[in-house]
């Protein structure tokens, strides 16, 4: 089950916690992976760890010109692109009334617009080969909302709507488009929370623990697999029961 031998995958934000775990998991299942991100050292360390079937493609997703080049670069490096994981994301949290235009624009650009551009570019090859798996890493807050994250929640809700629309367009071509919605996951992004904040969050997680990158990576592997062929336009929530949707 879930064999990805011979498949090619691009993972954005692979220098981060969830992205790194996802790249490792896809690779473990046999896929060739292109890892993208802004922190070259972290990408190089991951590539060294994976040692084979790995390509480093640095990209700043806030720069549209770099984004437009990323999908073609992945196709050139690997010969095709079967699986695209839009994982890269950032936060610029603030109370809504204090949210600056630039914090809104940056979060939307990196979390949503970059995924739009990568998906659009990937579609050509996927339609032609009549095979593709697009997986967006959204967030529980894209569905529930969250105080202090108006921009982030908007970008993540936008990714869900975008994915459903694209899924409807390309389903008949065996291209599936789905999202994975992590709850609270232990990553550098959530490390900024103090112990008291983490304890407060855990009172709302029936599973009684924070999630980890592997929990998310396993969901991505499933959606990327041949076995998930009939699943499209869905959001798979991986949150320890924090929100049951």
């Amino acid at each position, binding site marked *: 089950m879930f064999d990805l031998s011979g498949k090619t995958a691009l993972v954005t934000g692979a220098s981060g916690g969830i992205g790194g775990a996802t790249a490792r998991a896809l690779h473990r299942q046999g896929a060739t992976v292109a890892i993208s991100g802004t922190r070259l050292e972290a990408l190089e360390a991951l590539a060294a760890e994976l040692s084979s079937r790995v390509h480093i493609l640095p990209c700043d997703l806030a720069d549209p010109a770099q984004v437009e080049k990323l999908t073609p670069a992945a196709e050139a490096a690997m010969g095709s692109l079967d699986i695209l994981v839009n994982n890269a994301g950032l936060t610029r949290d603030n109370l809504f009334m204090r949210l600056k235009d630039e914090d809104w624009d940056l979060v939307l650009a990196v979390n949503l617009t970059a995924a739009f551009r990568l998906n659009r570019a990937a579609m*050509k090859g996927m*339609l*032609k080969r009549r095979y593709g798996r697009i997986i967006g890493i959204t967030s529980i807050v894209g569905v529930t909302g969250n105080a202090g994250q108006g921009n982030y929640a908007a970008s993540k809700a936008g990714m869900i709507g975008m994915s459903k629309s694209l899924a409807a*367009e*390309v389903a*008949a*071509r065996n291209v599936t488009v789905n999202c994975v919605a992590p709850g609270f996951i232990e990553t550098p992004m959530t490390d900024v929370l103090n112990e008291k904040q983490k304890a407060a969050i855990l009172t709302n997680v029936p599973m009684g623990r924070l999630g980890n990158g592997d929990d998310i990576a396993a969901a991505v592997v499933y959606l990327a697999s041949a076995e998930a062929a009939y699943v499209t336009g869905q959001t798979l929530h991986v949150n320890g029961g924090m929100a049951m949707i």
Partner: protein
Amino acid sequence: MSDVAERVRKIVIEHLGVDAEKVVDNANFIEDLGADSLDTVELVMAFEEEFSVEIPDDSAEAIVTVGDAIRFLEKATAA
């Protein structure tokens, strides 16, 4: 029939899985040949590849019949 017309017809027949006799010059991709809007985009992609040309979006939108495609590509490849 020109070489361009023959190649266009072949792509249309293969892509849409329609009978060759239906693929006449005035056949509308959507109304007569059962294409959906994504098929028309894919046909343009296939024409671009077959003829090594770039078909801009506004030209692509004007290609609604087999004849439109043949005329566009004859012009584009004549240069």
